[in-house]
């Protein structure tokens, strides 16, 4: 729930917006988990001014609070004449809304709102002061009782906790930079999204899709261990290499805490010339139905305002090649990645064994990445420690079968290799590829997913996800793809039993 007021010479008009759950209209804003709350202040203000071109100022509610437009109006308009700019607070000091002059947007400074802390009115007032010429920005106390202790996560999907500190730190650092640099308007913005492999890929592809006029960022902070992904995915941004290990995949170190601690490890001089925006997960991404590439595009400044703008309608813009394997046409060679970033993504052991054996029985050669135990069922165990190693493995295999992990995204979204995507505990819509020939997604059917659990099924209390497709589905998908991508060549070699006679003729 997001709201705003347009302040005109004639009066006030209120607006209500939603974090979109699938519909994209003038009042539905793409739900982007990688965008800090301030990005929504910018977007809501932009849409409000577009809807009310005569507005001199706009009041935007704090995105982490559920404030309806009518409530916002009653809170803001009580208590005398409005001053602009200003930060509206609860009866204590918590910011509940921002009063922003139209001029701020006309000068192209809207992106600086991404740096708002949304939790400290003093810091936010300082930021607005810098953005509007350095004058005093008052805090306007409203009658809303003190917001009090915030929950760890909100119904709108915001994950608070450490993230509150990250948003505050980015705001304070920005104010410091603006105080010390007269040329702060020209300084670049960097998205702090240093890990993990798949996420770096999504941000890289997103950077290629954002139109020039909307791209608000020039740089991206990326861990050194993912620099090859950053480069091989054609990221348009300039990398700021973070030479520390990525955050662990468990929840021991939250994104917010990692952000704050990583700032001390930035290359010398970066902090003195770059506005760094926290661009890891501010929200729980699985609540949003949109692809993480669209999440990232929104973070980088693209409004992604209609369905036609979303990845699924814009896939050709990536210029995706139709990557095909180069080995001799027979036998059919299948590469598999059956482990993911966390335990519950791993394809269940028993099903894995059936899958490998069935393909081998059908005459296929199966290679499995980084799972030595697969050798017992007839697979060759291989490793892919870099994008170039993965690329060469794919070139040597006709079809790739992968759980929701970086190799899946690289093969399907960057290379366009014939790929079977295996999803179970995560939502395909968040990270699968747009539909194209030679891509199959036996979608998980159970509503329990995405469960958000990392290492056990919360329903059955076991360490496997039963929402994964069955081996027979995957075998069928592999053969369908082989036929689709390589024609009839494979039917000559051992697949006769599973391939229909008419087609093999």
């Amino acid at each position, binding site marked *: 729930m997001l709201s705003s007021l347009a302040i005109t010479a004639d009066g006030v008009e209120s607006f209500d917006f939603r974090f*979109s759950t699938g519909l994209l209209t003038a009042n539905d804003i793409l739900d982007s988990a990688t965008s800090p709350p301030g990005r929504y202040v910018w977007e809501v203000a932009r849409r409000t001014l577009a809807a009310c071109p005569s507005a001199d100022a706009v009041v935007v509610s704090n995105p982490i609070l559920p404030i309806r437009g009518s409530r916002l109006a009653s809170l803001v308009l009580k208590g005398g004449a409005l001053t602009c700019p200003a930060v509206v607070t609860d009866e204590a000091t918590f910011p509940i809304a921002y009063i922003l002059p139209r001029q701020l947007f006309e000068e192209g400074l809207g992106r600086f709102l991404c740096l708002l802390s949304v939790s400290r009115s003093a810091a936010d007032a300082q930021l607005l002061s810098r953005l509007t010429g350095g004058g005093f920005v008052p805090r306007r106390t409203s009658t809303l009782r003190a917001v009090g202790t915030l929950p760890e996560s909100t119904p709108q999907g915001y994950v608070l906790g450490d993230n509150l500190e990250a948003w505050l730190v980015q705001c304070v650092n920005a104010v410091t930079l603006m105080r010390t640099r007269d040329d702060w308007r020209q300084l670049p913005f960097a998205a702090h999204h240093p890990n993990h492999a798949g996420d770096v890929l999504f941000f890289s592809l997103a950077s290629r899709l954002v139109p020039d006029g909307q791209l608000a960022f020039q740089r991206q902070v990326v861990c050194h261990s993912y620099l090859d992904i950053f480069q091989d995915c054609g990221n348009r941004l300039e990398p700021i290499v973070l030479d520390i290990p990525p955050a662990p995949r468990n929840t021991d170190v939250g994104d917010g805490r990692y952000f704050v601690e990583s700032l001390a490890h930035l290359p010398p001089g970066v902090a003195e010339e770059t506005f760094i925006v926290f661009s890891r997960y501010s929200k729980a991404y699985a609540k949003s139905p949109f692809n993480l590439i669209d999440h990232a595009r929104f973070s980088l400044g693209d409004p992604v305002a209609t369905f036609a703008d979303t990845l699924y309608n814009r896939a050709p813009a990536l210029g995706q090649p139709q990557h095909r394997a180069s080995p001799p046409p027979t036998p059919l060679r299948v590469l598999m990645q059956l482990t993911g970033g966390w335990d519950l993504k791993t394809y269940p052991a028993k099903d894995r064994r059936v899958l490998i054996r069935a393909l081998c029985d059908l005459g296929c050669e199966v290679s499995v990445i980084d799972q030595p135990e697969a050798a017992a069922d007839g697979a060759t165990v291989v490793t892919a420690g870099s994008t170039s190693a993965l690329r060469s493995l794919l070139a040597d295999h006709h079809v790739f079968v992968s759980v929701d992990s970086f190799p899946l995204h690289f093969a399907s979204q960057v290379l366009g290799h014939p790929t079977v995507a295996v999803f179970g505990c995560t939502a395909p819509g968040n990270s699968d590829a747009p539909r194209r020939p030679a891509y199959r997604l036996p979608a998980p059917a159970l509503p329990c997913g995405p469960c958000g659990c990392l290492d056990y099924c919360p329903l059955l209390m076991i360490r496997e996800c039963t929402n994964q497709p069955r081996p027979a589905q995957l075998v069928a998908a592999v053969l369908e793809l082989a036929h*689709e991508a390589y024609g009839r060549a494979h039917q000559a070699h051992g697949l006769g039993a599973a391939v229909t006679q008419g087609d093999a003729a």
Partner: protein
Amino acid sequence: MIPPLNLRVLAFFDARFQFSGPLWQALGGGDPWQTALAAYPARRHHSPLLQPGKALGRYDLADAAAAGRVVAVARSAGIGGFVLDCHRFADGYLTGADCLDPWCDDDFGLAFRWTPAPAPLLDEDAAADDAAALMAAISGFSPLVADGRQVLVVNEPYKLPDPARTVALLRRAAQAAGLGGIYLVATAAEARGGLLDAGFDALLDPSPAQWRSCKPAELLNGYTFLQAEAGQADGGMFDDTIMNYAQFVNSRMVDRPTRGKVFPRVVLDYADWPDHPRGGATLLASTSSVLYRRFLAGALTHVAQHFPEGERLVFIDSWNHWRQRSQIEPTTQFSTTVLDETANGIRQGGYVALTRVGEPAPGRSPAVDYDVIAALCRQIEDELSAPA
């Protein structure tokens, strides 16, 4: 809001909430809200019935403005029609559809649910008369159509002595009533049993009480059982069937394509204890509006992917069955939370369905023999399961 791809979400609707008119009179008058809501939990595990929220309140459908508000709220959530029960009265049927019809159009229509009379009561002629009366009762309103025909849901079809005969009878009666054709949906979980062969156009998941699709939750251990037997604890849980909601929704969606042309019935909550005061009730436990949203979205995606364009229906059970606690209308206790999640689920399902347009239907490539693959995988599974 209208979902894309010709997706239609229907909600079962109780039209008895009116204080005048033929249906009200036929049911004996009185306050229908009192009748629906006057039930108090007798067991610890019986959740109290909820109360209508201020958004719609205890409306009187006989009041045109009130009926219009109900339809407007449903439309705004993305619902495309209501399914009304046909109440047998004297020699005919009453539906209450006349209250809602003025607010219906092509985007919001009415379908009907008919429960056949017990077979021994009707001979051939009486059955034909009954079918004619039924068609008379459901014609003349803005119809909800599937495949270009008005939708009629047949409840408890397994009680029909000869389903094919009934289907033929209904089709003849529909023609005679000028309906042109009728789209018959049988309440049954899977295409086995010959209902589609008998002429039904599609099936619909039965209600939680009609089909216990997952095993009951084991909420009590042996010690508690002994305690209850000894009179030291409430033993009511042993008399009722309680299903865990997460397991229930999973069981309703698992392997759906193998069940054939069965429309999903999406349920937020279910507790029919008011009508089973001495035990035998069916209840869902640990319900969740988030899971409900995903259930609804998944159902929409399923029908978009597997059903022909003119027959993409998802049923919500229910709009206002307050006595079964399954209503999605705003409540005093939870305000519009459930209705909002309904709208979110419809938006999400519509979006996901759109992203999958162009995806080849699973299991339909002429180049692959799916039976051979299934048999091979079963054989390997058996080998791996066999003791060494």
